[in-house]
């Protein structure tokens, strides 16, 4: 497209830009499908233990900070809105504005991870980290510990996805500003990154009530 550009607008294996875009979109969705299977395993484990120990899970859930969990959810939901707006800007060729929106998205993601680490440290202080130091003053400590195993493992894997997302979104923000890359390629790249980010948000949308609101308060 641009004479000195080293990045072609349409890669060699595709007939045209539209086919490339369709392939890329399908590709990222196949990846998201594999991620659904990954988290699905964790969700399935939670479901089994919750069905077997409903009262235990409700009691254990009360030990989590629901207000902090709600704030974390709000942060991610807002970050998704910023990401969607960034993608929209890139569609209108406003790559500078797109980069700004993606930068805010990444910052909100980092805030989410920070809030979560703060939360885990608090849980550990209360002796709720599974393992040798686990301490539970209520009934049925073993199934309760299972709740916390599921909580820490699932939220840790999710936070890992958010952290990776922060790096990817930040990189996408920089790519958005690279004029050597043809506009359509930049726009598509932002779309694919956006899909990953929204998926990570959707996973948390389910995690939040599963762990923080398992029993009525």
């Amino acid at each position, binding site marked *: 497209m641009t004479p000195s550009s080293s990045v072609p607008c349409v890669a060699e294996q595709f007939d045209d830009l539209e086919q490339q875009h*369709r392939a890329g*979109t*399908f590709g990222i*969705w*196949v990846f*998201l*499908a*594999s991620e*659904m*299977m990954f988290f*699905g*395993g964790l*969700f*399935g484990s939670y*479901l*089994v233990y*919750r*069905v*077997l120990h*409903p*009262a235990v899970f*409700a009691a254990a859930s009360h030990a989590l900070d*629901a207000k902090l969990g*709600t704030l974390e*959810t*709000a942060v991610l*939901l*807002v970050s*998704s*809105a910023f*990401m*969607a*707006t960034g993608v*929209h800007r890139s*569609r*209108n060729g406003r790559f500078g504005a797109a980069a700004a929106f993606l930068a805010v998205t990444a910052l909100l993601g980092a805030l989410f991870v920070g809030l979560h680490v703060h939360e885990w440290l608090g849980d550990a202080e209360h002796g709720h980290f599974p393992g040798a130091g686990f301490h539970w003053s209520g009934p049925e400590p073993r199934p309760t510990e299972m709740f916390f195993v599921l909580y820490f493992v699932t939220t840790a894997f999710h936070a890992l996805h958010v952290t990776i997302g922060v790096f990817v979104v930040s990189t996408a923000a920089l790519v958005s500003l690279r004029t050597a890359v043809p506009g359509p390629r930049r726009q598509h790249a932002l779309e694919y990154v*956006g*899909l990953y980010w*929204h*998926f990570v*948000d*959707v996973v948390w*949308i*389910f995690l*939040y*009530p599963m762990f923080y*609101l*398992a*029993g*009525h*308060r």
Partner: protein
Amino acid sequence: MNALTRPSEDRTIVLVGAALLGLLALTFGAAHLDLGGAGNLVVAFAIALGKAALVGWFFMELRERSRLVVLALGSAIFMLAIATILTLTDYLHR
């Protein structure tokens, strides 16, 4: 100009964002009501499904309903449904 570049897209995003935060408040509020053990779970899950649907439909652009995308997403949901249902039929009958 297609559906994805119309100027009202900004307004749509803001409205969807507001709806998501509203559903979040609803989730938090509903958790403080006693709807019976299963009732709370069902309500929370239903609201979560609503939020996920909004993110999927508007932010992930499922409203474009590309067949390949629906195929990928549908396959995952189908596989997860099989895995979850069969796992539960095992554990619930032990």
